[in-house]
């Protein structure tokens, strides 16, 4: 991991995220959101968590971004553009950003370099999921099933 790759990925991610937050056309914003997630997955690869990076690409870009695009297409009669813009939100976000940056820069213990680590293989992740994390895994499976059935019921056409 070197500085040049980090700076490049950081600029890509933050620029795409800013575009997703501020572009006026919804479809452009959704595609910028997907680009920001590609940058985030690149961060995960830089940090040695390849499995999470791949899962992010599959789940977010393969499912969530496509779902957002479909929703935009299904609700398109309501102008593809977003007219209102709340400037109080900009002020609050800026204040939060300044507060976070100030407190991060003040914290001395954060300026450490990574220790040398063994690569985390998918085998070890699978072992951990099947031993120590079985209950959370089952709960997440139940939650996902319930959420998807709930989403289906919400969008089902009402028959009278």
């Amino acid at each position, binding site marked *: 991991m070197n*500085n040049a790759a980090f700076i490049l990925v*950081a600029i890509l*991610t933050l620029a795409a*995220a*800013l575009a*997703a*937050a*501020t572009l006026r056309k*919804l479809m452009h914003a959704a595609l910028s*959101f997907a680009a920001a*997630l590609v940058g985030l997955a690149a*961060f*995960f690869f830089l*940090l040695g*968590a390849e*499995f999470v990076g791949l*899962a*992010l690409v599959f789940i*977010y870009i393969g499912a*969530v971004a496509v*779902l*957002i695009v479909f*929703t935009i297409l*299904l*609700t398109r*009669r*309501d102008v593809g553009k*977003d*007219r*209102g*813009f*709340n400037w*109080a*939100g900009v002020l*609050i*976000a*800026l204040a*939060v*950003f300044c507060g976070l*940056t100030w407190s*991060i820069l003040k*914290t001395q213990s*954060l300026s*450490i*370099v*990574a*220790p040398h*680590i063994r690569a*985390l293989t998918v085998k070890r992740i699978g072992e951990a*999921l099947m031993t120590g994390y079985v209950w*959370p895994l089952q709960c*997440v499976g139940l*939650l*996902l099933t319930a*959420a998807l059935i*709930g*989403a*289906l019921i*919400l*969008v089902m056409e009402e028959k009278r």
Partner: protein
Amino acid sequence: MTPTLQAFVLVSGALFSIGLLAALSRRHAIFILIGIELMLAAANLNFIAFWHFAPQPHQPTGVMFAIFSIAISAAEAAIGLAMVIAVYRHYHTTNVDQLDQLKG
């Protein structure tokens, strides 16, 4: 020279602020969902960064947290977008300022 933990946490904070900006300032429901997803993504970046810079990174705890967080945010996105479609069917708008029937 390699980037420190501070750089990753700074990027994560910036990403969170951008998500907050999208969630607070836009009036379209889908933009608000995109903002919430960006904030969740910033939290995931923090989990992975703190795991990578931990003194003993042999336990995959941070990775597990990130995996479960990704699964839950996928469920959240599915429900949120279904609600956007349901609201659009009833009110023919997705502008959250116009959904004010409960306003006193």
